């Protein structure tokens, strides 16, 4: 049985942990605010880009650009998974990894091989020990998400799609809803399909330069923007998830301190009672 001193030590240690989790919570809250601003600022751009792109793509023949053409038979799929570089954020990465694994299992019976590009260290740590081919990694980058990063991820994806024998490229990330909720989201990046909400605008446009030229310049931009917003979404989600996890950890520590203090007090009282009994007993014995 633990001695009184052991329990006091534990209380001190839990208190220290609580200080850390509380500090992490505050840091995450501050970072979350900035990340949330970033993603909110980026969304109009992405939405507009999507709208313009879709209306253009829906009126153009897919044959004009290889990135628009769906393959007849899908053999290999590339999955770009966006996780965080650091842990202590609850189920943030685990949920995503599980999602990716489920996707792979679903594809396996169809004879489709799924390869990964890992953005963020945690996804890579998880999958490099498993029987998954990792086609590329971008590690320790989530601290500083910017356009050039999205550009280089997009360039890798396009290169693999055009030359690497992949027929489809998907993007998997945590979509930021609120600070407490993230939604695992999977999007098809390539080939770019215009089947969704296409042809909404039937107005005839003037095009400068030609429709085809516009489209082929727009495709890489569109892919970049999609990746960029996914990265921003992931960063905001990560901070949200960490804040929630640390909040829970702090209140758990509080509860633990309460229980341990109760136990310590009880033990202290017990020992005082025993001591008193002994003294009284001793005095009685002397009287006789």
């Amino acid at each position, binding site marked *: 049985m633990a001695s009184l001193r052991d329990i006091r030590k534990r209380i001190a240690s839990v208190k220290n942990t609580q200080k850390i989790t509380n500090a992490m919570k505050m840091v995450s809250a501050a970072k979350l605010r900035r990340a949330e601003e*970033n993603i*909110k*600022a*980026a969304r*109009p*751009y*992405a939405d*507009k*880009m999507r709208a*313009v792109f879709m209306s*253009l793509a829906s009126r153009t023949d897919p044959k004009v650009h290889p990135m628009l053409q769906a393959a007849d038979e899908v053999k290999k799929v590339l999955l770009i998974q966006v996780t965080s570089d650091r842990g202590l954020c609850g189920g943030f990465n685990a949920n995503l990894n599980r999602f990716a694994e489920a996707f792979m299992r679903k594809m396996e019976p169809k004879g489709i091989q799924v390869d990964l590009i890992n953005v963020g260290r945690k996804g890579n740590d998880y999958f490099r020990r498993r029987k998954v081919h990792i086609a590329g990694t971008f590690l320790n980058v989530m601290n500083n998400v910017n*356009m050039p990063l999205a550009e280089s991820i997009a360039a890798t994806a396009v290169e693999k799609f055009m030359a690497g024998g992949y027929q489809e490229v998907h993007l998997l990330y945590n979509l930021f809803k609120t600070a407490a909720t993230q939604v695992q989201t999977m999007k098809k990046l390539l080939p770019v399909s215009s089947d969704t909400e296409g042809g909404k*605008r039937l*107005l*005839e*446009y*003037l*095009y*400068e*330069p030609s429709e085809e030229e*516009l489209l082929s*310049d*727009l495709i890489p931009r569109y892919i970049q*923007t999609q990746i*960029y917003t996914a990265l921003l979404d992931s960063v905001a989600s990560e901070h949200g998830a960490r804040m929630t996890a640390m909040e829970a950890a702090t209140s758990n520590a509080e509860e633990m301190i309460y229980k341990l203090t109760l136990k310590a007090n009880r033990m202290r009282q017990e020992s005082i009672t025993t001591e008193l009994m002994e003294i009284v007993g001793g005095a009685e014995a002397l009287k006789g």
Partner: protein
Amino acid sequence: MPEKFKVQLVTPRGMLLDKEVEEIIAPGIVGEFGVLAGHTPLLTFIKPGVFSYLEADKFIKFAVGSGFCEVLGDSVTVLVEEAYPESDIDGAAAASELRELEGRLKTMGSVADAAAYGKLLNQAKVARAKVSVSGATVAGH
């Protein structure tokens, strides 16, 4: 009172402009173009340069990076990679940035790495637009 239309200037960092204006002038890929209310639907690229809009007889300017512009009857959407309003630009800083970029362009030469050269050239064009918006002068120009 001239007719007004809605214009939005959007970058990945947020919406910089969302209001009713009388006229805009944008740097299109095939030349600068102006838009008044009731313009034919148009989709075109924007090259780095100066974008401006007319409001109360005054042109308000922005230095913009490359992107594209969609004109639809009653609204204009300009999507660019970057944009800086006139009030945010430090003329002297932009001028020295431009000098530095031009120096690097000269030493680099376009043969070695076409992609990197193109990127740098793009940056230099944006810097030039900034300088032109701020009205600063660059030594040697």
